[in-house]
């Protein structure tokens, strides 16, 4: 890695940080330097679930000897802490999903007028999975039934989440065997909080199993529901061209940034921003037009569906304001630094909080109400127009930006491999089997000011594609790659290994596929399931030559995501220090025990080079276990199985997917 990088690997960000330092503006980067993480809490050794403590379980032989006032050993404490992180992460995604489900219901019943069903085909696909009759029925009736079924998933007390059956059978069997098939989303979160409260569940393995059940409720529940409803309401993404980084802001237009995670209001803002009267209003304030930009995962939502440019991920939020060009930044929920309210005071930028769940002292609050969505969106855009006039000359005024191609939904990835008639995952499976593609990595998670921000994402992205590993990215991982200029098809031609390059060239894709926001990690789950179904690789998610990596994670949501991948059968590697690092026992459970039970695991590894080596090792071992051709760069696709008539007669009986070697 480049040792010269100080705070951010994003050159534009680095310039803004420097400019900020010159102007005595403090950001998360300085705070991260000043405020070292608490070494006890960092490794999971601090217990504060009751007021006899907080207890610090430290010292020599802490694993064996240390205990809290109640007698809880280190392994219990570390496991409880982790399970609470999972619960919080699951709650976050799922509460977002719940709002989407109610929006869908309100749209279907006509209770709200500003939203309609946009993607009927997706609605039908979802209805079919849920066992809802759709042929010959009014679209809104189907949508209503879909919404109601989804709502059941949150409050269900017994039984299973509907979407669990989308997983390969063998994967489901593992969940049943180990008792981690989630019942209802809220129930699992609630039980997680109960079991981790003082004096309840003390067996680390038992605690962690419930952690996995809660995480699965996130992945196959909250996240997947959020993804699908958003697709139904606003369209399933298809490739779009857009731009990324700070240069997306325009000097002569009203710059309005949508930041946070929820798509509904942002969609409405996108819609009203092109209304002639709104544009006229902007012009009346001296601007040439209205320029929307995104930040964090709301950015990903509107980038995927409308090509709205993104200013980047989590650590860019203060820096965006420091360009001096942002007239209004709306925020909703999750990953909003309260610091933006403070720093916005140094500029003309107005921060508008919009969620009834989230307010920031010092920010303006315009509460989003889906019944008045359009009206509220107009009000916000007008605020931005009004504020354009207050734009001052100071600010870093960075102009760097990069083109990106995004919009890779599960549906489009299937389509792009064969078109309307031949859509399938056969070519991807073939490419992996033949060794053109060595494996697949999901590069996801946050960006983090505790490391040179986005730097590990960039390092791993370039190294992995050089090694013929196809990357699917989400959330701030996508933002990190986008602001580095990696999300272009040219990236494949110039930097991918020879096999991956051939595949990218045949299809016309970047070597890194932007799948959407962090809730859209659910798309990776369904893609893996489809690959298992297609045949020729593993017949479950476990055993696939794939790895999940969140190199710069910081959010509890990331932990929930990592754990649902592990429980689904994916080895997961997280960067940074381990939040359970104090307990060898918990570490062992999350790596060895989970691997044995689920073919998934969760590692914490701060060294980027070791992360890369571990990922490639997992991939190569999976290839070996599947008896695939050994990966050798540049060597693939020579031997052919030639068919005579006898072999053709046996096709039906053999019914084995053809091996593309």
């Amino acid at each position: 890695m480049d040792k010269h990088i100080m705070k951010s690997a994003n050159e534009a960000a680095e310039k803004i940080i420097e400019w900020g330092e010159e102007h005595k503006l403090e950001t998360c980067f300085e705070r991260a330097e000043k405020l070292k993480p608490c070494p006890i809490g960092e490794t999971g050794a601090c217990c504060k679930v009751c007021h006899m403590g907080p207890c610090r379980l430290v010292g020599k032989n802490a694993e064996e000897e240390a205990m809290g006032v109640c007698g809880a050993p280190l392994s219990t404490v570390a496991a409880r802490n982790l399970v609470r992180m999972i619960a919080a992460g699951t709650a976050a995604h799922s509460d977002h999903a719940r709002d989407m489900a109610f929006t869908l219901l309100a749209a279907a019943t006509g209770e709200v007028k500003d939203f309609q069903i946009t993607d009927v085909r997706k609605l039908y696909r979802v209805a079919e999975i849920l066992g809802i009759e759709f042929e010959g029925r009014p679209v809104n009736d189907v949508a209503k039934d879909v919404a109601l079924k989804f709502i059941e998933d949150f409050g269900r007390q017994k039984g299973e989440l509907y979407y669990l059956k989308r997983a390969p059978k063998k994967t489901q069997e593992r969940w049943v065997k180990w008792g981690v098939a989630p019942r209802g989303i809220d129930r699992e979160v609630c039980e997680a909080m109960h079991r981790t409260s003082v004096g309840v569940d003390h067996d680390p393995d038992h605690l962690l199993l419930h952690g996995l059940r809660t995480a699965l409720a996130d992945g196959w529940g909250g996240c997947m529901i959020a993804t699908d409803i958003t697709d139904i309401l606003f369209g399933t993404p298809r490739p779009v061209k857009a731009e990324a980084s700070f240069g997306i802001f325009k000097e002569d237009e009203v710059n309005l940034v949508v930041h946070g995670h929820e798509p509904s209001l942002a969609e409405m803002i996108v819609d009203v921003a092109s209304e002639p009267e709104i544009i006229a209003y902007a012009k009346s304030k001296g601007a040439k037009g209205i320029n929307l930009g995104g930040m964090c995962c709301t950015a990903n939502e509107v980038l995927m569906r409308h090509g709205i440019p993104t200013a980047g991920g989590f650590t860019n939020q203060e820096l965006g304001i420091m360009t001096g060009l942002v007239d209004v930044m709306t925020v909703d929920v999750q990953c909003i630094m309260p610091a933006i309210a403070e720093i916005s005071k140094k500029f003309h930028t107005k921060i508008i909080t919009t969620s009834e769940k989230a307010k920031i002292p010092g920010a303006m609050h315009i509460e989003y109400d889906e019944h008045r969505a359009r009206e509220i969106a107009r009000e916000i855009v007008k605020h931005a127009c009004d504020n354009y006039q207050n734009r001052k000359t100071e600010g870093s005024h960075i102009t760097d930006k990069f083109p990106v191609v995004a919009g890779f939904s599960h549906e489009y990835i299937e389509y792009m491999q064969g078109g309307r008639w031949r859509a399938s995952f056969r070519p991807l499976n073939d490419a992996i089997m033949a060794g053109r593609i060595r494996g697949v990595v999901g590069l996801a998670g946050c960006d983090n000011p505790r490391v040179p921000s986005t730097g590990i994402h960039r390092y791993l992205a370039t190294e992995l594609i050089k090694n013929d590993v196809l990357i699917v990215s989400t959330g701030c991982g996508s933002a990190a790659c986008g602001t580095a200029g990696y999300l272009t098809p040219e990236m494949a031609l110039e930097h991918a290994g020879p096999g991956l390059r051939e595949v990218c060239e045949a299809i016309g894709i970047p070597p890194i596929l932007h799948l959407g926001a962090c809730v859209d990690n659910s798309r990776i789950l369904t893609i893996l399931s489809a690959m298992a179904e297609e045949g020729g690789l593993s017949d479950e998610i476990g055993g696939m030559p794939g790895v999940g990596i969140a190199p710069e994670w910081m959010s509890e949501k990331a932990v929930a995501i990592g754990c649902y991948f592990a429980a689904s059968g994916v080895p997961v590697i997280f960067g940074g220090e381990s939040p359970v690092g104090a307990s060898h026992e918990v570490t062992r459970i999350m790596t060895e025990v989970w691997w044995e039970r689920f073919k998934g695991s969760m590692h914490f590894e701060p060294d980027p080079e070791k992360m890369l080596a571990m990922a490639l090792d997992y991939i190569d071992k999976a290839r070996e276990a599947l008896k695939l051709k050994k990966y050798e760069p540049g060597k693939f696709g020579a031997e052919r199985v030639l068919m005579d008539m006898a072999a053709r007669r046996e096709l039906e009986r053999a019914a084995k997917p053809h091996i593309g070697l």
Partner: protein
Amino acid sequence: MSKLIASAAIRGAHKLVAQAEEMVEKAIAEKGKDFAFEFPDTAYYLPMIYAMTGFPVKTVGDMKVALGFAKELLHDEPEENIWKPYLGEALDSGMATLFAEEIILAIKYIYGLEPYKDPETGYVYNGFITDTIQRNLGIQLVDGTMPGFAAIIGAAPTDDIAVNICRELQEKNILTFLSGQSNGDSVTKQLQRKGIELGWDTRIVPLGPDTEHTLYALDWAIRASLIFGGKKPGDFKDHLKYQKDRVFAFALALGPLDDIKWSTGAGAINMGFPAICDTDVPVIHPTGVCTYEEVDKEFDHSKIVQKAIEVRGLKIIVEKPPIPVAYGPAFEGERIRKEDTFIEFGGQRTPAFEWVRMRELEEIEDNKVIIVGDNWQERYEKGGQMPLGILIEVAGRKMQKDFESVIERKIHHNINEAQGLWHMGQRDINWIRISNAAQKDGITLEHLGHIQTAMMKHRFRSIVDKVQVTIYTDEQDVIRLRDEARAAYKERDHRLGTLTDDAVDTFYSCLLCQSFAPSHVCVITPERLGLCGAYNWLDGKAAYEIDPTGGNQPVPKGELLDAKYGRYTGVDDYLKKASGGAVETLNLYTIMENPMTSCGCFECIVAIIPEANGVMIVNRGATMMTPIGMKFSTLAGTVGGGAQTPGFMGIGVNFITSKKFLSGDGGIKRIVWMPKALKERIAEDFKKRAEEAGVPDLLDKIADETICEDSEKLLEHLSSVGHPALEMEPMI
């Protein structure tokens, strides 16, 4: 790079869809939207559109609807830089192109512009390929004599290269379609200039002069999954998987490619058919849409055919006897006209015969060819006519007397497959010609023998260990031995007469068609030959001896469950297994309950006419309307694909005169209608059977198309002639 291909395909689709739209609008304006259209002799409307969408295009107005499907498949071209993905879009464009081409060609048919006639030479291209041709080829598609299909688009750099490529394809048994042009020339014209015989008989079929005509080949391919695969119209995924897995077609693009060629190629790639080009094109190697590469290149024309075959994943085993001319089934249909004939034998011109006789191993010498006759060489060199007796003596540890006739029938194919040699008839009514060209290439009488020794051992490996051939050329020898042969023929026929279903304990299956119709199983009994007409019980028995794990397996009869309908436990047990569970039980002698399934290459269809209390039989190739209101082609569509359809059944022609023909339903007395030509073809045997059945004048009572083509008139006829079916117990 692939982007160039995708861009070209997307542009090509736009052009053709626009052209089709213009033509449809014109046709609607001139002919009206209700103007009906169908391609000649097909039950599948516009087959590609029908298979993919399930929408039957019956009128010009329907074409407009279908064109709407094509329009939905159009996309923007990828941009120069920072492009969006293009593969799915290019494949969509390919399908849009096929839809548009199908409509364009249909409208050209309406205006009498198809099949295309070359204004200079007057040559008429094949145009649309009929269902009948497809079904006629049925058995060849499955028995390995036609393992693959090539579509050559464009023109080779020279006429000689064109000839070489086509000859190589012929020798590899590949059926070749020609279309398109490059630089104003085409392989069709190149072959014509070289005097190469074109057409179905030689397996080189010019479809038309434009790239668009390639669609006819794809229309032909897609009907394989409709006819043989039993795939439902509109189940496009099933169709395309079938095409990819079972239809071993590929394209050779000779000369430079334009947008239309690329977009048509993209359509073919949808079906899993790769393209090999002889120019420096971008390649697409990743697999998964096609089984192997999608687009590849090969500049060396002596290697391009082999490359294409490998890229398609096709295994071809060719056995060539040591003779100085080309050899293979592609030459089987070649004609030798009188003026091209160097020498001929038999055919009522000279005495001749051909006879296979079983010997003990020590009695003959393998590979020996003996020619008996005074000055035979000199007489041969002179040309003209000559007597000819071919005695083939075979020996082998697993050889059986019964196999003599099976082996003897192959003499015809063995000779015919040599380029410049022609054979027809059999036994003592055979007729052989050797062309001037073949004689010039060095063919002598000895080669006639070498062909037999090599090919008999190849075809009957593991039955035949030794083959010795004696060729007689003196008239008195030929006549003497012909008498001996005649005695053997007679004895054989007698033996055949005693071979009945009841007399044997084992039937044979035929699974050859499972390469195309995966759940179909033919059960061949001594009295019921395969529905294709090509395999009888002895063939099955011999084939099993040759290859115990091959397409013909013994089926022990087991216990007789129903003597009238012909149901056996052994047959049922076997069927369940061999059909993959698709068929549970079979009655051999009835059409009414669990009758035999069909693959699609049946010679005839038997169909119940309830109001006549009987059945009609219509043969492949008959194009008239039948009394049940469907032509053969439409009827055939309801019978194939390995499904049991009570009341409908595919059969071989010779089964009509078997004692077991619908014996459970009342036998031949149930037949109320047959095409006139079919009646004439089977008249001799039929009259014998009718006499046995006690209705000597039955054939005269059976209606044909000269009497009626609808059921009302049929009934009038039957009652006026007093057809026995009317008096029989009700069929239903």
